[in-house]
């Protein structure tokens, strides 16, 4: 079976939805944060797949062409995600030191 663009997109979409479900349903901040990273990686996979299978409509002789923009974008996403994780984990560690927990149901200082 030939692996086409749609296969990659489907895998990325599944990852994205699993990550989203993780963010919504899990109660542990670290797991939530991992799920967030999974959503970002799903977007990266989409980018790479699109840029690998990019085709110029006007050149049927070269149906697929590595479109470099998407691959460059992935590096930006990875870098930004790393910065975000650095800050995020620092906040979660600070929370653990203060409250000895990383469960979201214990975040109840601010409420309606």
């Amino acid at each position, binding site marked *: 079976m030939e692996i086409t663009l749609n296969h990659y997109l489907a895998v990325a979409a599944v990852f994205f939805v699993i990550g989203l479900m993780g963010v919504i349903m899990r109660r542990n901040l670290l797991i939530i944060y991992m799920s967030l990273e999974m959503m970002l990686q799903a977007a990266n996979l989409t980018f790479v797949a699109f840029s690998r299978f990019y085709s110029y409509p006007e050149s049927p002789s070269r149906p697929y062409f590595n479109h470099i923009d998407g691959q*460059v974008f992935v590096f930006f996403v990875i870098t930004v995600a790393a910065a975000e994780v650095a800050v995020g984990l620092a906040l979660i560690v600070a*929370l653990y030191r203060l409250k000895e927990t990383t469960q979201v149901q214990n975040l109840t200082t601010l409420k309606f």
Partner: protein
Amino acid sequence: MINASYHIAYFAPVILLTVWALGLLLAEAFIPLTPRQTAWTALAGLLLTGLLTLAFDTGPWIFWSGLCKWDGAAKFFNLFFVATAMLVIWMGDEVQEPVSHDGGEFVVLPLFTTIGLMLLAMANDFMLLFVALELVTISFYILVAYQRRNPAALEAGIKYLILGGLSSAFLIMGIAYIFGLTGTTRFDAIALELQFYLRTGVAFGMLLVLIGIGFKIAMVPFHIWAPDVYEGAPNSITAFLSVGSKAGGFIILMRVVLGVFGGPAGVGIWVPVLSVVAILSLILGNLAAIPQRNLKRLLGYSSIGHTGFILVAVIGAVTLLPGQSSPLYITDRITGQIAVSVYLVTYLLATFTAFIVLAVLNRRLPGLEIHHLAGLSQRSPLLAAAFALSLISLAGVPPLSGFVAKLMVILVAWNHGLYTLLFFVIFAAVAALYYYLGPIKAMYWSEPLDETPIRVNLSTTIVLYVLIVLLIGTGFWAQSFSSFVNNSYLAHAATHAAGSLAFKQ
């Protein structure tokens, strides 16, 4: 006016501020600077950046292989963000109680946020948009949770972190789909591609991008973070979030929905979506503010309501005029844009007045609930008057500046036949009056529990007077105020009308 032949020169303000911020961070590590010295050095850097920005013309120029665009909107919003950051840093140093005694990061980080916001205003490519937006968001995560030993601040920071990360994930997934189906990330190239026809995948990507931006501007249903984060963050940062982050969100919202998806096909999809969202924001923001007792939460919900008002102006920027078959003349778009900008300026004035008062009170009162304000007019007439005027302006009562903003939104909606939206705008404005009057009643018609007068230091007094004069002045001289905004947008645009503001069809 500098009309640079090397367009990279338009980067100068951003580069200046970046060098200044990094230099300050480095200097602060080696030289023992007092917090006051750090703050005033940062203010000097911002002032220079602002003056340098003023020196440039308004293009429009696209440079760096289409990564950046310098136009009237970019210049206007760059100045807006510099002014916001100056007020924020001044507040952090002078008005509120010291947030931290170690390190000057609390002063330097707002500079990085400002750099991100300035780049957002100049973005002409999703790549720059993403990186600039993340620069803004990540420095806000730190700023919100800066008092990390205070449970409320830390909790606010974590809530902002998780929901901000979620919104980035949506944004980047949307950008991936838009890139994949158009083959480019440049705004003008995508707009050209999508002129008449929008593939389903691109529409899907657009909705994901709207979700990502929606978090930043706190529109319903992506507003959940706003009240909690507003309550937990230090006062100056709450004001920054409420003004800077919202204005940044709106400038990219305008670039994306009016520029990238401004063609007939795109408009057909996002106008109904944003209309529903605007109505929800108007209703929820204004009704949920009514039972609030904490002033910062109240302003948080009111900020969601204001998002609704500004969204109406954004929608008004493109809607078909009645009887017009081929859509969207550029003048209509500019009317909507001017309404958005005027609204944001008046919002800046009123919000900062309110938060400066709250920051002063935070040091003297046991809490920031409405009942703590009782009899404030007897304890400090200036603070009471400033807070009352800012709330009345936010409510949109003539002749204050908030009225001009609301009037412009209503006119845009009326001229473009958005009667349903108009109904909700007026309903929300009336509901807003009710909860804005609560604190005023407490300040002027309740007996104080504690008679001791509250002293305000000289610089705070001066800034409050200036803000009050601006709040009243922009309301009374609304004509010259709105034409000032208009002119700063369009100074050079007459000759480039079609290209200006990236609104080519």
